[in-house]
């Protein structure tokens, strides 16, 4: 499974790679990282029709996570990839908008990786 993580924080890469060290080693997941919405869209263009999970932060300079979500869900590709939004704690507003835009699932910061893995397994399953 290919997972595209979109976040403007550079350390996200290190975090995910370590958190999913075993899964990566086993070849169960493959991670790609984009540091902005624009980068993410470029990558998606390149990987057209690949089965994909997108994990996106919302607050980013330039294109926000919500815009990315909108792009992916409404205009981008068929079948649309699964998109999980990472929102700040208690950010009901963003949650609601993302839901409307067709977000498939939500994570709250700080990211609970145990829960995330469960969700990914479910998704895989």
């Amino acid at each position: 499974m290919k997972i595209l993580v979109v976040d403007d924080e550079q350390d996200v890469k290190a975090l995910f790679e370590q958190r999913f060290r075993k899964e990566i080693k086993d070849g169960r997941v493959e991670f790609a990282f984009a540091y902005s919405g624009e980068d993410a869209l470029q990558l998606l263009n390149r990987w057209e029709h690949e089965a994909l999970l997108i994990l996106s932060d919302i607050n980013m300079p330039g294109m926000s996570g919500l815009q990315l979500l909108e792009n992916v869900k409404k205009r981008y590709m068929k079948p649309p990839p699964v998109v999980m939004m990472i929102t700040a704690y208690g950010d009901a507003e963003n949650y609601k908008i993302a839901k409307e835009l067709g977000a498939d699932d939500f994570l709250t910061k700080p990211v609970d990786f145990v829960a995330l893995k469960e969700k990914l397994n479910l998704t895989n399953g």
Partner: protein
Amino acid sequence: MRTILTLCFFLVVNICSAQDTAITLSASMFQSHQRLFLAPLDGWIFRQGHDPSWADENSDITGWKKFNLTELTAKMEDNTGRVEGWFRIKIKLDSSFQNMPLGISRDLWAATDVYINGELAHSFGNTGNPYQPYNPILKYPRPVTLIPGEEYLIAIHFVDYETTFTQREIRLKPQNLQRFINLTGPEYTNLVTRDIKLTHIYVTICISVSSLLFLLFWLLVFLNPGQKIFVLFARYTTFILLGTIFIFGNTLFEISYSVEKVRFIVMSFSQAVMVIFGLFILEWVLTQKISAASWIIFIVVQIANITAHLFSISLPFGLAFTIMLVHFGRIVYIHRKNIRGAQWTIVAGIILPTIATIFYITLHKYSLDLFNEYDKLILSMTVLSSPFFLLTYISMRFKEVLAAVKDEAQKVIDITEEKRQLLANQNLVLEKQVEERTHELKHSLETLKSTQSQLIQSEKMASLGELTAGIAHEIQNPLNFVNNFSELNTELIDELQKELAAGSVQSAGEIVSDIKSNSEKINLHGKRAGDIVKGMLQHSRTSSGQKEPTDINALCDEYLRLSYHGLRAKDKSFTAKFETELDKAIGKINVVPQDIGRVVLNLINNAFYAVNEKFKVEGQKPGTSYEPTVTISTTRSLSSAEGRGEVIIKVKDNGNGIPDSIKDKIFQPFFTTKPTGQGTGLGLSLSYDIITKGHGGQLQVEPGEQAGSTFIITLPLK
């Protein structure tokens, strides 16, 4: 005694009624100034017609009737208006005339020949052809020689030949005919001499004075147009001048009877006009108008006046004159309380000549002695007193006007002084007020200052509010890393223990380096979170005003991110690109970090607001290429105007820019383009103060209308 004698004498005359009885004349019979009127004597006999022989002592006197000269009437005229006849009388002078030079005088115009004892003694005018009346004005008596004690036959041949339409002497009342012929003594001669002298004196005075007054008043009219009173006076003096000329006209030259009659009528007319016009002036001065009643009275008096003087019908004139006096007397009476100052001279100037006229007439009738003595004086008074009083009026008016002017001037001075005092008082009051106001202002200023500091605080809190959401977000990221990396490390340590137990040293080494790297990350993100909290606290804290070395680039970066996330937190639809172009060479410079941070935050907030506003419009358009972007750049310049070098911070947006119309206002306090409740309007104003006053720098704007605006902070290096 003399009266008794005279009475006896008349009794004797009446008894001796025979014609040829001589009438004895005595010096006691002299009227004033030794003048004996012969006309009213009782001994006259008369016959109408003419025969030269009737002068003769021996001519037949049958058919003659007893008739004296005062009994002549106009009824005796023939169809040509001629009256001719002879009178005869015998007289004897008593001893009272001893050694007295005698003369014959006449005061009437009818041509008359006087015969004494049949001899022509003197011709007054010409009774023959051509008829020539006798001018009696200012004439000396003709000397005659009559010896006392001797009897004389006096025969008079007279002709009165005038048109019936003029006032003829024979129409006069009997008392006027008394002076037909008189016997005079030397005193009368003296009187004539005196009369001639006085006449010339008074004529000269009256004519020259009234001419001068005439000129003077018309000059006044000419110099003061619009002064009705002067016009009235000038007309009045015109009538006075005319009146004077006509009154004295018959004494200026040997006047003919026809001219004399005209003069007489014109004089009568002028005198009436003078009197009434004077009364008009009085009325005008008192009431400022001349009533219709006055004009009617004027006309009636004038008509009555002419009939009186042409036909000797004096009753209507007397009545009209009386009515006139009553009418104007009434006006004076009604307005007596309003008569002030100079007006009295008018009243006097009208009343005095009227009184003089009445006095003149009365004197003429009842006291010829006094009349002969003072007639010229009184006449002059009737003529000249009015204009003199008018002159006095003008003098007094002038004085009054001057006094009024002086009064006005004094008033002006008083008012000026009053105003000056008022001004001085007002100045005092004003000074006091200014003091009070200054005090109030000081108080207001203090209040304002405290309000301002409160506002600054609330502005700070407002931007803090914006910050909080951003901070909450910002702090999530480092926390995310801190939590996850620490959890990871726990896991890694578990794995490490397993590997160590398994004796796999290589794997253990890899895990340890991971743990180290992770704990470094934990440390880094922990610090980051700490910085964010510190920054927030610094921002909300009242500025210490203490300058300290500050990393401008870090400050800009931090606030840019804070601002961005703060806005994102508030408005989910908001998005913008932000870029930093930071000059690494800047290093740390001495500023008040909280203050500069606030300015930077404010400018960045504004920039994001601007691009968002534009995006709200542009973003909706299909196929838009608008990309909201905010760029913050820092540069260090070594060549400032002061040569000290400077740091420039530019906050650039690609929003809608600032319209020229508000460019000058944006740094004013409370100016905001944001909707009510969204902006305090203090941000830029406070920023401006912080940069210019707090740091000696400059805050400028390049308000590119389409390209967006750029705010430029210039901080001098010390």
